[in-house]
């Protein structure tokens, strides 16, 4: 009984910490329509900043709190809204997600540079001491966290329902233009939302930091709020009381499972369950959400899509690419950079290029954000290594097929919901697979999982040059496939479902089926890429397919142009090269890049003044080039519609 009470108190405290972060998320989302993926990273920075001031520089607690919460968090919230988010109005739907992810990797990147991960940092509680109640010891810090959470809940309630600003804050996401007409600046309201969101993220970070008895770590603290994400989702990203209650429930459930279930499991399994829990909660939350009503939003995509290469053109392009790769592969077959041969690096580029292509399909064409393509790679590599002794064609096929199935399973629970929820589901999946699966010693083994080079029908691709050419052929085929899909009927549908879901449904097309199908195809491509990646490297380790590298890669594809095949390739080049040259700063480069790209939908490759036109490519004529649009006439339809049905 005493234990139970102890666990309950700790669970409520943990839940209260999540609740503060989660309600911050909800406030930002309801006032600006943006889900801040950097919420956890803001809390992490606040916790480290607080440690720096109090433990390293001996500042008093109150001063540190003011500096971190008011000066640090709130002002940066205002700046982030003003400088990063405001100019994204009217950008494609995936862009705010990318920019907040960019912010997340910058913050974690900077933190890694400033606070070396090898040092252990324990944070002193804001209130020291404990007291006894019905036979159990209760830390004052726990009471403080619970009290602050209650104060935040009451404060928000009063703000939203009893003040004029509160009404405006609630109105802003429904119809910013209408709010603007009533004399309130919708931008100002969004800014308040971001300030509050950052403030609460920092508050939860500072309060929860002392409860981490083994010290605060950058990655785990950044991902600590995934449980908070689940709570926010249960509250449908707008209901603060429900979010709050869900956060408490999740805190309790985590703590009960930790103390009552995990002791009965083997230590490996217990660790897996522990790390996979937030993701399980997130998934459960997604499944329980009621379907979102399909809305005719009347927003017309004004995006100029990049030109899609024709069938013959893409075939010729692929052959030319292959020839150049062969020449380079032969010429530089013995060159090494920092201990890695150029051929291996080239092979990695090709494999990651295939992953980039899968993103072109999934995110670029159909507008769904996937943050777990690296997880599919990891699963693909795992299957490749385990099936038929590694290096078999069967392994390649199985990796592709199983990843397609897993992809469909991830997409299924979210198709009833808006695209943001798929992004969240993939975020949770990437985290859970990285922590609970790849990190498990039994999966990849301590020295990593070794994967043989492919050998088929007596032909072995054991040599580095042969292997490089093999993966290059796979890349070229994938690129050609993606372009062929885009030109096809299915490709038109992918673009259509992204442009207007309401119109898509009302012309008789099944939105859910299309989305699951494209996501599964993308997952299959990533799985294939992972299997090939394994054969290139010969061995894959636990950190190869982590959540952060996966997100950073998505950002690089976005920077170069997520709607083009060349964008996918250049992103792979950038990623591999930067990882060789400045491995510790890759995240910062990616984050800054995506912020600088801002709303340019087609990335660097889409920026007009960088374009040059090949003399033989015909310029398409636009409406503006014609003297006058043809007049409305020639209405003899002659039953054309009924014939079209045939």
């Amino acid at each position, binding site marked *: 009984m005493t234990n139970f009470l102890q666990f309950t108190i700790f669970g409520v405290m943990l839940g209260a910490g999540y609740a503060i972060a989660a309600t911050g998320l909800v406030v930002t989302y309801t006032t600006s329509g943006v889900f801040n993926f950097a919420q956890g990273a803001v809390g992490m920075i606040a916790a480290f900043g607080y440690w720096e001031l109090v433990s390293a520089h001996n500042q008093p607690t109150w001063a540190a709190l003011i500096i971190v919460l008011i000066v640090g968090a709130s002002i940066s919230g205002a700046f982030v809204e003003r400088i990063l988010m405001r100019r994204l109005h009217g950008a494609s739907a995936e862009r705010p997600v990318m920019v907040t992810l960019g912010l997340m990797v910058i913050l974690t990147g900077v933190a890694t540079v400033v606070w070396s991960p090898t040092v252990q940092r324990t944070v002193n509680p804001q209130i020291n001491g404990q007291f006894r109640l019905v036979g159990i010891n209760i830390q004052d810090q726990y009471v403080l966290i619970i009290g602050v959470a209650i104060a935040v809940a009451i404060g928000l309630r009063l703000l939203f329902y009893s003040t004029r600003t509160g009404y405006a804050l609630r109105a802003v996401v429904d119809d910013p233009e209408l709010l603007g007409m009533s004399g309130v600046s919708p931008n100002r309201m969004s800014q308040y939302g971001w300030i509050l969101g950052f403030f609460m993220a920092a508050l939860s970070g500072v309060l929860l930091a002392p409860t981490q008895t083994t010290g605060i770590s950058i990655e785990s603290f950044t991902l600590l709020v995934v449980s908070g994400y689940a709570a926010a989702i249960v509250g449908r990203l707008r209901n603060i009381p429900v979010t709050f209650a869900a956060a408490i429930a999740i805190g309790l459930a985590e703590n009960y499972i930790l103390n009552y279930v995990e002791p009965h499991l083997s230590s490996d399994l217990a660790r897996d369950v522990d790390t996979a829990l937030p993701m399980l909660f997130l998934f459960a939350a997604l499944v329980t959400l009621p379907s979102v*009503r*399909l*809305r*005719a*939003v*009347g927003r*017309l*995509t*004004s*995006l*100029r*899509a990049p030109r899609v290469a024709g*069938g*013959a053109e893409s*075939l010729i392009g692929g052959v030319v690419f292959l020839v150049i790769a062969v020449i380079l592969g032969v010429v530089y077959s013995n060159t090494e950079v920092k201990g890695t041969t150029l051929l291996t690096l080239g092979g990695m580029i090709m494999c990651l290029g295939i992953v980039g292509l899968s993103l072109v399909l999934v995110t670029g064409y159909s507008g769904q954000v996937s943050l777990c393509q690296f997880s599919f790679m990891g699963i693909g590599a795992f299957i490749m290594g385990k099936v038929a002794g590694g290096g078999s064609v069967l392994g390649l096929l199985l990796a592709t097929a199983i990843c397609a199935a897993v992809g469909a399973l991830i997409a299924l629970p979210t198709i009833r919901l808006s695209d943001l929820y798929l992004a969240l589901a993939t975020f949770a999946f990437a985290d859970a697979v990285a922590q609970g699966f790849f990190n498990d010693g039994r999966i990849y083994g301590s020295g990593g999982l070794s994967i043989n080079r492919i050998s088929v029908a007596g032909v072995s691709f054991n040599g580095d040059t042969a292997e490089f050419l093999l993966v290059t052929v796979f890349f070229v085929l994938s690129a050609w496939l993606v372009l*062929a*899909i885009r*030109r*096809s*009927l*299915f490709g*038109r*549908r992918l*673009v*259509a479902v*992204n*442009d*207007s879901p*309401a*119109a*898509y*449904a*009302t*012309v*008789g*097309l*099944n*939105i859910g089926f299309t989305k699951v*199908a494209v996501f599964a195809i993308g997952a299959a491509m990533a799985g294939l890429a992972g299997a090939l990646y394994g054969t290139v490297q010969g061995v894959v380790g636990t950190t190869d397919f982590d959540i952060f590298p996966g997100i950073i890669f998505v950002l690089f594809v976005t920077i170069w142009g997520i709607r083009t095949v060349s964008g996918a390739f250049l992103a792979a080049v950038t990623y591999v090269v930067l990882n060789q040259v400045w491995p510790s700063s890759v995240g910062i480069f990616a984050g800054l890049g995506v912020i600088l790209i801002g709303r340019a939908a087609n990335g660097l490759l889409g920026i007009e003044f960088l374009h040059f036109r090949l003399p033989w490519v015909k310029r*398409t004529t*636009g*409406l503006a080039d014609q003297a006058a*649009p*043809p*007049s*409305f*006439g*020639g*209405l*003899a*339809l002659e*039953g*054309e*519609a*009924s*014939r*079209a*049905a*045939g």
Partner: protein
Amino acid sequence: MPQADVVDQPSTEGGVDVLTIEGVAVRFGGVAALSDANLTVKAGTVTGLIGPNGAGKTTLFNVISGLQTPDRGSVHLYDTDITKMKPHRRARLGLARTFQRLELFGTLSAGENVQVGLESSVKWWQWRHMKRAFPWVKSGVPVVDGVPVGEPTGPGSIAVVTSDRLLDGVGLGGLGAEQASAMPTGLARMVELARALAMAPKVLLLDEPGSGLDDAESQALGELLCTLAQGGMGVLLVEHDMELVMRICDYIYVLDFGDIISSGTPDEIRKDPVVQAAYLGTVEVDPEGGVVGHFGDEVAVERTIDPTTEALPTEGEAVEG
């Protein structure tokens, strides 16, 4: 009633009931958008649905097309109850619509927009469609009278040819390659219409198709809708251009505050004191802001516009751009 009568002579008696709405109610929080809407569209007729802004016309369209689930009531397409059916299933049964605020596939060209509608029943995962991705596969489309037939998709196929014809039909001949989002509103509305027609619908719901069109264009639109109705289609038209509504509609329903307050032929509607009262009512509230509209050429009636919140979309100019 036999369908043949309808084709030759569209009249208020019309053909079979293609669309029947009974007792539909929708509430948004405390606001009743529709309280008890009853309406019937007959094959071979153009049925008008008029009413002030905010009367519930678009909500009713959303209920019919499946974007909004009603709290009460039922929607029937012929004898099939479609009240709970998903939007895409209704569309496959022959229900097509356009939107008041444009819902085009903006990144696609006008022609491709229409093609998506034309090909909506094609199953892309079948090999005979997939193989077209390979450049060396000949289209193999037999040509009859200069029109390729047999294959529904791919270059030179029936989809491409038909989409060109549909665009011609709505006055957009030669604009098939234009990116949809780059088109002016009036033309874009016609792309939406062509896309809806591409599905060869039995019932066509049009949400203010005339806004953004000039007089000649709206005249031509009227003729097109009459032609479609003569072909046996049931057209339900929401429109603010009263001249157009009075001229082409066989039957008109008037919606106000979520209720059908009147219905009848254009003549009956013109003379209905209930309708006049509903329309004139708003003017009494604020005579300064009232705007004169016309029911046909006859009775000058004040338009039911709440001057505080709405701009006047007469002549279609207000929505342009």
